[in-house]
């Protein structure tokens, strides 16, 4: 085999997977139109399903958590350099209502600015005490457990509480804040 044919072979060889794909594309040419219709079908389906998901999500929430009793607790992080969160326990009026053990993925999402809804439920009007207990690793790798509480006056409007794990850079300690969304 001469050098020229070798070069041709080399180039053919490196291009051959492509050639195979192109041939496949050509031979499937008759299927292309069908695929276009299929594409449209799939796109239409996706749109419908997204709307459906939205409607069902709202229906589920409206039904399970009517607005006059709806009560939600959220958790967010503001950098969180001094505390590595393992788990959160949530209590309302000394009754345990939610526990969450965090995966690395969830922690990363929180650190990047995500807000987690820890709990959604129904709460009667009046005064209630909300307690969140955070467990994890604090500064210098020490075990860390800290509770944060707030007393809320539940009205007939939906109520949102947000706990935030932040950094107290002056003390080099984590800080736990809580706010009621108006």
């Amino acid at each position, binding site marked *: 085999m001469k050098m020229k044919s070798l070069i041709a072979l080399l180039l053919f060889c490196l291009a051959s997977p492509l050639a195979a794909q192109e041939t496949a594309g050509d031979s499937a040419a008759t299927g292309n139109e069908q695929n276009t219709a299929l594409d449209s*079908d*799939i796109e239409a389906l*996706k749109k419908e399903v997204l709307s459906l998901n939205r409607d069902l999500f709202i*229906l589920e929430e*409206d*039904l399970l958590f009517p607005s006059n009793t709806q009560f939600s607790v959220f958790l*967010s992080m*503001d950098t969180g350099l001094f505390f590595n969160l393992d788990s959160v326990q949530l209590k309302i009026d000394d009754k345990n209502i939610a526990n969450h053990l965090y995966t690395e993925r969830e922690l990363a999402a929180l650190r*990047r600015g*995500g807000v987690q809804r820890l709990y959604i439920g129904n709460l009667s009007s009046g005064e209630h005490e909300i307690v969140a207990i955070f467990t994890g690793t604090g500064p210098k790798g020490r075990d860390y457990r800290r509770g944060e509480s707030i007393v809320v006056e539940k009205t007939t409007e939906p109520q949102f509480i947000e706990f935030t794990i932040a950094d107290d850079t002056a003390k080099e300690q984590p800080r736990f804040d809580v706010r009621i969304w108006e």
Partner: protein
Amino acid sequence: MCASGNKRARRIAVNRQHSVLRCVYALLLSLAWPPLAAAPAGEHRVEDLYYGQALYQFFQENELAAITQLMVANERPRHASSQVDEANLLLADLYYGYGLHEKSRDLFAQLLSAEIPSSVQNRVWFNLARLRYEQGYHEHARDLLSRIDEQLAPAFEAERKYLLTNLYLGNRQYDQAADLSNRIDSKSIWKAYARYNLGVALLEGGEYEKGRHILEQLGQTDATTPEQLALRDLSNLSLGLMQLRMELPEPALQNLSRIRLEGPLSNQALLASGWAWYRLQQYDRAQVPWRLLLRNNAVDAATQEAVLAIPANYAESGQDKLAIRHYQNAARQFDLQLELLGKAIRSIDGNELISALRENAILHDRIDLQRLPPSSDVTPQLHILLASSTFQREIQRYQELLDIQHSLGRWGNSFPALELMLDERRLAFEEKLPLLLESSSFDQFEQLSARRDQHAAQLEAIESGEDYLALAQEPELEHLQRLRRVAGSIDRVSPQRNTAYQQDMLRLLSGLLNYRLATEYPARIWKARKQLIQLDRALGETEYRVESLRQITERTERNFAIFQQRISGQSQKIAALRERVARTLKQQEQHINQLAIDAIRAQQQHIVQLRLNARFEIARIHDKLAVTQ
């Protein structure tokens, strides 16, 4: 010829006119890429719970959940500090990622038509530019990028410069591209992609030295992430192949030797290395990479070519008998491969490919597939098929359909629970209803209202007649009655005796009493009016409560009906959608099977051609030997 760092951008950045390396890009595509960079990465505090929740899902790569959150958020009342624009920006980008390009473009346009802060506006222009660039509208993309009038966040700024570099390359403005690519943040992977594209463009444009310099730099960088490693390999392979084309086998070997043996480009690198040694007429050394390639026993084109390259090498070096033996081996190997390919087609017809796709992690993580392929006759072909962007797109669609099916199934299964919940609430309400109706005392309120009206009418009559006697107090009324009795007694005894003194006294006392009643009338009428006003207020409050309870009762009953209607409506919708999805899934499965079979048939044709070459070479060498003998 382009490469890029973003899943979407990478996909489109491949310039389809430069075919030799397309297979390489396809292999690059099969690596895992980071998620879209549409959202802030801890760059600012989230002030919108809905947006924050969507980000929480998005950062975990749950794009569908993030879309749902953002769509729900648009239906809910938002707080004053809401980051609606930021949220919609993310939603538009997620729509794009989910293949809903029109929805994405509409939302971007909607954002631009509203009054939004300039930082958001710049990011919308950037996103739109990226979208238009990917759709091939390069001039429009350039125009949108030129509107950005302030520095974007670092991640976006690097990508903006990368896009502009590509646009310069498209216009063969190499100096501008070189200048801009140098100004991309060195920590960003976009810089490496921009430099790679520039290097390849320079090589293709005939600027060998400049292109070589850039690709050699990239080919020797410290790489740690899979993306950096892949790009380093790609730089070395691109340069090596170009040097082979330019008949520069020595530097080609140097660059090819830097490619990882365990990487996705190793087969191409081994094949090209063999040819480089061959060019140097070092036939024995050429055998080493080719044999290594054969040892991998892969079914890709590079390996198949190596099967022929070995005997060609022997023939060239004059070892004809050895060449014949290897050509015969090659022909047998091709027979075997053809048989395997035939078996693969039969197993695809038997739905094995779809089963493998459904069962394997392929649909979630292609990298896992490469490590642990499913056990199937189609398995060896899957790797090749997965290198094709068309096939990847179809698999992604298939995955999306499966997700939809799963989601519909989950919603469908949740309806009995929702209906049960509704029934329970209705039952609880019906139990409380009698008590509610009683406690709301509709009748009692009516009676009280009637009595109030009576009092008001009386007061009106007293006022109009200035009837101060009507406002007399109990002791005063007793005094009046007593005075009347005294007057009666005086009248009875007056015929028998003189009662002038008593009558004077009676007049005096009556006068005093009437005087007091008359003088106190304004204060008393004012007090009575005040009491009526207080009564009106109390009754108004009662009326409000009664009305509120009446409305709650009606609304609750109406809500139950609405909820029931919504549940039934959605339930029917889901049933219809499930049928449609099942039908579309079936079509998509057929389409994937057809694509796979077409690709395998093309591979069969290619191998048949190679087998023909092998047989031809055997005949040719036999002829040659016969002549010499």
